[in-house]
């Protein structure tokens, strides 16, 4: 893998993968960093780099979540929690905190499909290859999740206006 490919993949997928990993664990940045480093250590470039990145991120994030749960159980402390989204510019209709909260309330299978499709730019076929299952199943999860999100976000006032 040359430097241009690495830069492109990092710029294109780092944010999406971080958001994707954040739904599983707290140290999402570390997980994404390890995944990109692991991609560079591959002897051959994966045929579908986006799918490979999402699958690797998912596996590592789940492992990280288990480690965090063990650590919390033994030490009684958790890592610092970070926001999922940057603060939006003025005039932006959706509130970042509300969107984060609404996403967290979704079932995991709907949430990961929404993140992979919306911010990862993956098609449902690619999502099916990366996560398993069929493209139709993931499309159905996606539409159900989006409907739930819209209902939640449009009905409830923004969290930032509450304070």
């Amino acid at each position: 893998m040359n430097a241009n490919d690495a830069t492109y993949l990092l710029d294109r997928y780092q944010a999406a993968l971080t958001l994707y990993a954040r739904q599983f664990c707290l140290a999402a940045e570390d997980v994404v960093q390890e995944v990109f480093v692991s991609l560079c250590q591959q002897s051959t470039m994966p045929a579908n780099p986006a799918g490979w990145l999402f699958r690797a991120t998912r596996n590592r994030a789940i492992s990280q979540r288990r480690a965090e749960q063990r650590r919390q159980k033994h030490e009684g402390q958790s890592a610092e929690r970070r926001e999922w989204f940057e603060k939006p510019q003025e005039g932006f209709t959706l509130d970042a905190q509300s969107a984060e909260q609404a996403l967290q309330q979704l079932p995991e299978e709907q949430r990961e499909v929404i993140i992979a499709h919306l911010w990862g730019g993956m098609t449902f076929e690619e999502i099916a290859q990366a996560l398993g299952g069929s493209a139709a199943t993931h499309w159905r999860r996606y539409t159900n999740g989006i409907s739930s999100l819209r209902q939640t976000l449009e009905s409830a006032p923004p969290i930032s206006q509450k304070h």
Partner: protein
Amino acid sequence: MQEFEKKLQALVPTTGQRDQVLFLMGQASVKPVNRWLWPSVSLVFAMIALGLGIALYWVSVREKEVVPQIIYVDRIISVPATPPTLPPSVTPQQPESTPTEKYPSPWVKRDPQDVNPMTIRYQQIYRELLRFGIDALPQAPLYESTASPVSSSVIRQDLSEWLGVSPKELGIRKQ
């Protein structure tokens, strides 16, 4: 729905440090040649050093345990005897001719090819003479009348010379 998706998509996820990740990716992309070469070499030498250390320790321990002890062992060694070699000047020289060689002793082993009938007869007479005395001698051949008679002293002398013994041993008395 598409409008809501666009609004949602416009939210920017927070990310980690881009430059740090790029640096680590570049570092990871460099594959060192023979990655396990030097670790293997150092491991081998460490094992050798450890083995030598253990061997040295055991040698020192065993040296302390050993008590010097003198053991005498008797052994019988058979060595083939070699005839003493005398210097050439010391070697005794055999006389060229002896009376016994002229009339060899019957007990001396000789080559069978050298034995002739006269020798056998002589040996037979010699044994009978030693056993029975002078009476066992055969009759002397008769001399020609023309020849002078042989005196007994001549016979005694010849006989003693033949047999290699003194006349006393023959039991011959002087007449």
